[in-house]
């Protein structure tokens, strides 16, 4: 257990985790940033919030992803970026889980309108894995 803890805490693991996380966030951000209208539609499919603020989220979310992704990839304020990533991944995971629990079936919109992955077990596991990677990424090194 001690050895495992040391591996998780070592820069050898933390650094690639941050880079990978950053790349995923960048891909997600760039896919969505040009079409907030499509993103707003996808957000509405989740039925998670009143209709009013959905547009604001669609307008800002890709930019937050972009900044966090850039910070992680460029290793410039990477740790705050990883924290943001954890926060986002927790919310995304919850969003997918609640959609599944309600029996909703739609495309997740995670990587823009061209991404046909549907909300489901696969997406949930993907998000959980990314959350785990992000949690490693927030470790101080």
């Amino acid at each position: 257990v001690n050895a495992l803890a040391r591996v998780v805490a070592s820069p050898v693991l933390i650094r690639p985790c941050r880079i990978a996380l950053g790349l995923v966030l960048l891909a997600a951000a760039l896919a969505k940033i040009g079409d907030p209208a499509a993103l707003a539609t996808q957000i509405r499919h989740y039925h998670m919030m009143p209709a009013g603020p959905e547009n604001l989220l669609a307008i800002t979310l890709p930019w937050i992803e972009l900044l966090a992704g850039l910070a992680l990839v460029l290793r410039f304020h990477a740790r705050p970026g990883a924290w943001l990533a954890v926060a986002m991944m927790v919310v995304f995971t919850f969003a997918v889980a609640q959609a599944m629990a309600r029996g909703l079936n739609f495309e997740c919109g995670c990587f823009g309108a061209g991404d046909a992955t549907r909300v489901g077990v696969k997406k949930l596991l993907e998000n959980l894995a990314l959350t785990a990677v992000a949690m490693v990424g927030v470790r101080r090194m």
Partner: protein
Amino acid sequence: MIIETGREREPGGGETARGALLMLAAGIALGVAWNALHLARRPPGGLPWVARPQAVARLGTLEPPAGVALQSDTVATLAPRPTPGAPPRAAARPTNPAAYAQAATGPAAADPAPPPAVAAPAPASTPPVIPDVAGPLTIELPAFKQLYDANAALVVDAREPVPFAEGHIAGAISLPYNGALADPDRIAGLEPAHRAIVVYCSGGKCELAIDLAKFLVESGKRKVLVYQGGYPEWQAAGYPVARGMAEGARP
């Protein structure tokens, strides 16, 4: 005890939290600025700051008076055109004239886009079946069935191919919402006959159908209707259904 590691450790929790908040604020600011820039352009792009409620006006239910046989009525006599501004014909539905007024005025309020060249009102003597207004209207099962029986509407299934194959309204074509976004050519080729287009999905709130209907309207289609009861209601009513991917086949 101080351990010499040869490099500085990363900042601790407090500073990291501050950094994360700053990053969040910067992201929000960038997004807002970007959208403001696009809203300011001519023609305006970007998104309105606050989403409009997903309201779709209802087409009057168009139910015939009790005792009138459905099949003997033509759709046209059952669906008088609600001319905007004019009072609805009292004889058509004396109990609920407001439904027509709502159908006539609702979509203009619900649709953010300016109505692209609303057709001039037809002469009162030839009432069209479906009001030609900008923005989709919803349609209830009885009225839809009349359109269906008269073959006066293109029926579009907004669900994914798998549920479509498992069962759909006989004669419907499959046009999943996300697929439609990716295939403007197919949209352009839809329904050259200018019949009404009725979009349905799996009932409930039926976002897919509403979104697809709005997209069709934005793509220049007219007389777009949303049948919100969807496949479950249609099937429960015992009306014709079909299985498999074959499109447009009616019994």
